[in-house]
């Protein structure tokens, strides 16, 4: 693959001065529709070399699966049932028997490289920045150097300039001029890109110049140091992120189980209901508000809360309220409820998973410290978890309702006797716990499956978190979740995911030995 890119970019840089709008020669396009992979990649290079906006359009269409070839070998761009001739730009009716041009990874790589190269000189800053990012993700390539230098020279934006300089240095690593190589090695000393390691490693042994070897060694150490630091920071972030997921999954349970003492085996299904509500919201938005489809989450949050709240209230009024004071029986009943809810979802939505897409603003991630990618959806979930916890804490500890809730859960009969309508409080509390589980479901839908079994995969973890934190202790739940997340993420690279999971379970068992009432155990007489 590499040599081809080389040609491609070399050609590109040669024709840069010619940048102009020229209609494409149909003969250039023809190989795209053919079967020969090498010819197709070469065609991409040649099309790109024309450098015009037509070329960009064709390449983009290729990426988007919008390029179609007629049996006659004519190549068309078809978008929204509108066909235009790729060569001439003339609108045409969509012909019968046209077949999509198949794009595989190799071709796609070539097209992306070509487009990035073209975009390096684009007027819009965003486009140039994206091009730089895309080039960063690709292998270093000495043939890029001239093009990159040109772009660097033209560039005005300091941020892009800095990144381009790094790209240039990277490309220069294999330059034949030792001075250029040395400059490149030195320039790369503040990179954190692990992909440079093999090359630098090779320089350590192959480089004839001792000074260069030393410089390469220094750069290598600097990179290694940065990589190691990023790894630790990465693990910290992953831990917080996993912790916040566990927390969102467990928070509702911290109320229904922790506070109310209901061994709520249907908790997972309430998460699932939240996730399915998200799915339904997404579908409704796609159907009725396609323009605002990316904002379905904004509607999904209250909707999921309310739906799960309502389901919770119905469950409480119909089943659970008869079981207060019989905590072990709640296990049986809620297990039954869980089976029924799962089957209900299977009947309505099918046994298969349904698709919930991250909105565009939650897709992708931000690159920090050079190489660490923090996905937006993870960041959003961490923030969201913090907000939900804060809200729950406020409600429980700073409002009269919260006081009543805690009082009823501790001594229902006496709370009744001092005038608290316990039935309503029970209903509200279970509803609240369920609603929060619904919110958790929204968050989970952004990370993983939305299917009938969604709840089952979180129920065990949720109970562990709540119990580890200390039943009835919100702060314990928070700390328990984050602690498990962090421990897990620092164990996983060392022990592997499976052993990490086993270790976590053992950690829980051992930890409970030390603190038989969980992390935030209440002490003293009040516990008895």
């Amino acid at each position, binding site marked *: 693959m590499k040599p081809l890119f080389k040609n491609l970019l070399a050609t590109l840089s040669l024709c840069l001065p010619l940048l102009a709008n020229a209609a494409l020669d149909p003969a250039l396009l023809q190989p795209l529709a053919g079967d020969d992979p090498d010819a197709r990649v070469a065609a991409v290079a040649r099309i790109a070399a024309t450098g015009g906006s037509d070329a960009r359009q064709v390449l983009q269409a290729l990426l988007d699966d919008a390029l179609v070839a007629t049996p006659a070998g004519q190549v068309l761009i078809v978008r929204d049932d509108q066909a235009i001739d790729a060569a001439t730009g003339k609108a045409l009716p969509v012909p019968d028997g046209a077949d999509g041009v198949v794009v595989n990874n190799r071709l796609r790589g070539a097209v992306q490289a070509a487009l990035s190269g073209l975009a390096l000189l684009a007027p819009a800053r965003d486009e140039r920045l994206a091009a730089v990012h895309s080039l960063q993700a690709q292998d270093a390539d000495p043939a890029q150097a001239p093009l990159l230098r040109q772009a660097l020279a033209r560039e005005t934006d300091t941020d892009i300039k800095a990144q381009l300089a790094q790209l240039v240095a990277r490309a220069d690593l294999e330059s034949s001029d030792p001075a250029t190589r040395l400059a490149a090695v030195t320039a790369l000393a503040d990179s954190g890109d692990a992909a440079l390691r093999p090359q630098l490693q090779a320089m350590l042994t192959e480089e004839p110049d001792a000074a260069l070897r030393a410089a390469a060694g220094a750069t290598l150490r600097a990179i290694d140091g940065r990589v190691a630091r990023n790894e630790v920071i990465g693990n910290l972030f992953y831990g917080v992120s996993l912790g916040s997921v566990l927390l969102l999954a467990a928070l509702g349970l911290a109320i229904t189980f922790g506070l109310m003492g209901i061994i709520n085996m249907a908790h997972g299904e309430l998460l699932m209901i939240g996730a399915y509500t998200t799915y339904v919201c997404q579908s409704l938005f796609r159907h009725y508000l396609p323009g605002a489809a990316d904002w379905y989450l904004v509607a999904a949050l209250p909707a999921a809360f309310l739906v799960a709240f309502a389901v919770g209230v119905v469950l409480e009024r119909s089943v659970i309220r008869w079981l207060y004071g019989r905590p072990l029986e709640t*296990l049986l*009943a809620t297990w039954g409820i869980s089976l*029924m809810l799962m*089957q209900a979802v299977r009947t309505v939505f099918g046994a298969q998973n349904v698709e919930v897409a991250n909105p565009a603003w939650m897709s992708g991630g931000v690159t920090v410290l050079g190489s660490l990618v923090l996905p937006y959806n993870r960041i959003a979930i961490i923030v969201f978890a913090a907000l939900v916890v804060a809200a729950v804490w406020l409600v429980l500890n700073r409002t009269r309702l919260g006081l009543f809730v805690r009082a009823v859960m501790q001594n229902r009969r006496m709370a009744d006797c001092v005038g608290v309508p316990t039935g309503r409080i029970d209903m509200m509390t279970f509803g609240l716990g369920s609603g929060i589980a619904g919110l958790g479901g929204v968050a989970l839908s952004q990370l993983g499956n939305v299917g009938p079994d969604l709840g089952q995969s979180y129920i065990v973890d949720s109970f562990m978190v709540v119990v580890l934190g200390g039943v009835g202790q919100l702060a314990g739940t928070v700390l328990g979740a984050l602690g498990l997340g962090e421990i897990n993420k620092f164990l996983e690279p060392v022990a592997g995911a499976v052993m990490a*999971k086993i270790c976590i379970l053992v950690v*829980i068992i051992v930890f409970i030995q*030390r603190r038989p009432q969980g992390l935030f155990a209440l002490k003293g007489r009040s516990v008895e």
Partner: protein
Amino acid sequence: MNRTSSLFSRRAWAVLAACTLAAALLPVLHLAFPDGHPLHVSGYAVGLVGKFMCYALAALALDLVWGYTGILSLGHGLFFALGAYAHGMYLMRAIGRDGSYGSVLPDFMVFLDWKDYPWYWAFTDHFWYCMLLVVLVPGLVAFVFGWFAFRSRIKGVYFSIITQALTYAAMLLFFRNDTGFGGNNGFTDFRRILGQSITAPGTRVALYLATLALLVGALLLCRWIVRSKLGRVLQGVRDAESRLMFIGYDPLAFKLFVWTLSAVLCAVAGALYVPQVGIINPSEMSPANSIEMVVWVAIGGRGTLVGPIVGAFAVNGLKSWFTAAFPDLWLFALGLLFILVTLFMRRGILGTLPAIARFLPGRRPVVATKEEAA
């Protein structure tokens, strides 16, 4: 409460004997009458009852700790599986060279390039040694785990959850090929037991009768225990553990005793289960399986001894029937059943059959609700 020394009332003895006899008669009918004869009982039915009896034994064991001592274990599947694996090791070795690779090693070991049995497989070709393992391994695991947990005074849900963690961890461990127990496929394709073909009708009947005998034996043993003063101490542990300490009992010892005993009984159930079902794999250790056991006990009637047996039969019987009769909707029926039983049969099936319950083991009136009593 009558303080006589007989385990059961006369009527209860009669019912028990009748049930045992009826159960023992099933395989006889299966063998004695040809297919199509009105008195013929299908091999499928006999197998099913045999399997249910294993479940019932496990439920009985669980009830001993949960119903009587108030220790809710969400990890009894582990003991069940350990017993089953211990027996399974013997059954695997009894395959001999009849496996796919024609090696004395089980197929999965050949496949993993193992040249020899790992140390923990030593002597497992001896039936009685494996039977010893059936009892010792789960017993030891339970004893050590229990000793630490009870010594730390871990109670209630905290205990339940760590038992769940334990079985979950074990499941993941057994899933791995490297652990040496056949990964998620576990042990299967057994050929013979004590030299007899495992599929031979005679062997099947023998296994069935052994299960029946052990189930009845376990019932009598449990009944004897809960009727003894020790039984009352156990209930004291359940209701007011600290009070018990202040009158001079060491709850640790009592809990450990009943916990280990229960684990061993459960393991025996597992050991009887493997040859009858023909497979053991780590999914038996999944948390959901252990919860299901709890459900059997709760449905049947916690704190009674016959209850769990009835519960295991009822739930599994219904499940067997539902999954064939309404494959698409059976979970609704089962779920609803669980809910209805909790709401309308507070003490499980057995608790609502007072006519029967009056002369069956271990029933006692309860204070209206926990809250009222507190």
